[in-house]
């Protein structure tokens, strides 16, 4: 049956598995990386997709959490075997997860949502705030041709920059991974403890202006993930420069697979009006101009 939901996507690739933790380590202040053995998910996931994770058998916390896939790790045979997730220890589930021992098992289902499209460009500018950097290691590795995800093409960007802001230096997580991938890092912090003491949209504007000196606007792409206010301002900066911009929404989800209708965002329709759309199945990545910011 073709498309009875009038939604472009379903979670048809998703698998529900009980996955063993093989690594669970601190990356930055209150920020952890957990590695889960889940070949069914690792072989399918593409950059910008997410999984739902839940502590097996517990009623409290009850509901799964949506976490972006940070990276895919291959086994000895070179086949995708495990997924890495990066999370901040903040609520009930992440506090529990941070204390979970290597060898213990969590329930995960995914891959979910639509990733960032691998559309070729000269200069890819990734824009992250807070914990919003988590999808971008995989994006950079794919875009620069270091790693294949799923069946997708690689090497679709000539240059990749990351504009990344956090409250302070000790919250910046994964900088080594970005540097190893060959990403140009443009850091900023609210307190000036690392990089510029500036807001992310300000730094983006400068990076864009510099890029536009030798690259046409049509050959630049901006991808955003982070607080909505940051994404709104960043998308305004991109629009003013005539540069294509996509944003990854993080609205509260209960299921991740399109059945609960919790995670809605106001999305512009072709008739000019808006409708609530589920970010789990119709996003989380949207063209910035389609969103009605609240």
């Amino acid at each position, binding site marked *: 049956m073709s498309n009875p939901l009038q939604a472009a996507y*379903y979670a048809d690739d998703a698998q529900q598995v009980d996955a063993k933790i093989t690594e669970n380590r601190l990356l930055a202040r209150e920020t952890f990386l957990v590695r889960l053995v889940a070949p069914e998910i690792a072989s399918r996931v593409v950059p910008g997709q997410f999984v739902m994770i839940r502590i097996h058998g517990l*009623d409290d916390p009850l*509901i799964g959490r949506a976490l972006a896939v940070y990276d895919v790790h291959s086994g000895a045979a070179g086949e995708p075997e495990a997924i890495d997730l990066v999370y901040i220890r903040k609520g009930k589930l992440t506090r529990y997860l941070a204390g979970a021992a290597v060898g213990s098992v969590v329930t995960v289902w995914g891959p979910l949502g639509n990733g960032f499209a691998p559309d070729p460009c000269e200069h890819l500018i990734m824009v992250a705030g807070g914990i919003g950097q988590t999808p971008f290691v995989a994006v950079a590795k794919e875009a620069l041709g270091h790693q294949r995800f799923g069946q997708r093409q690689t090497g679709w960007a000539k240059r990749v920059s990351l504009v990344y802001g956090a409250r302070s230096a000790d919250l910046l997580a994964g900088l080594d991974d970005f540097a190893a991938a060959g990403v140009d890092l443009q850091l900023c912090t609210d307190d000036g403890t690392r990089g510029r003491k500036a807001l992310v949209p300000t730094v983006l504007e400068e990076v864009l202006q510099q890029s536009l000196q030798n690259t046409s606007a049509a050959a630049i792409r901006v991808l955003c993930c982070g607080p909505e206010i940051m994404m709104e301002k960043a998308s305004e900066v991109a629009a003013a420069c005539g540069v294509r911009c996509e944003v990854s929404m993080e609205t509260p989800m209960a299921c991740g697979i399109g059945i609960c209708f919790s995670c809605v965002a106001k999305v512009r329709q072709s008739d000019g009006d808006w409708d609530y759309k589920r970010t789990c199945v119709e996003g989380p990545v949207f063209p910035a101009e389609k969103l009605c910011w609240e």
Partner: protein
Amino acid sequence: MASLSVSLNRLQLKNPILVASGTFGYAREMEGIVDCARLGGILPKTITAEPREGNAPWRTVEVSAGLLNSIGLDNDGVDAFIAHHLPYLSQVETAIIVSVAGRTEAEYVALSQRIGECQGVAAVELNLSCPNVSGGVDFGTDAEACRRVVAAARAACPVPILAKLTPNVTRITEVAAAAADGGADAVCLINTLLGMAVDWRQQRPLLGNVMGGLSGPAIKPVALRCVHQVRCATDVPIIGIGGIATIDDVMEFLVAGASAVQIGTANYYDPQVSTRLIDQLPGALAELRADSVEQVVGSLQLPR
């Protein structure tokens, strides 16, 4: 192998494990993850006469062992349901029980008739109890209004009628008896309990709609109590709903008097739960030396 089939007046189900309205989308979403044809029945998300955009976010908030929701019957209306969702649903080889909600008795009747006349619909569930939609009569809290709407829907609808009731009443037995009197083939107990969550630092409610319905394991004892009270008060078949996530939960509801159960919130946090429960059911029946589900329904022994 024990017989898993159950009869609820005019409605026959191949097994007693159904999935609750609003917790399984329109089934197509689950195709990749659940073998839907194995289910005893599917209740797609409630439909209304006109499209509804639903409530402002946040629409769900997790609480201890439960979930508060205020989705607001977000749906594209009956025309879109029949055009886009029913063709898919009707080819799934299980009972499709369509949940409908109206603001007036006439709306319930018109929706029940229209849906009931569609090919591939096994029954209609009247959602008499959605706590998140204002306006209209609250048919779930007024026994006489409940009886009238069920009777009118039954007269107009060629397939069995189920009445889904709210626990947010003083005496659920009276509303259930009224639904039975109106001709409901079964009553579905319970919808969510009205609740609320507050962010004291921001000094605001967490749900966009302020209040919402509580579901999940937290409400199971309330649901069991309602099933038990209604079982004692009337003969109408009962479909139990409320926090069911394990085979023990299923058996508790059957013993307390439910002929079947609907899995709700657990579909969100354990998408494959329903078919796993079907796999586990024969073993649990064997523990009671029962040859059929119907042997254990209402087998609760009360203290003398």
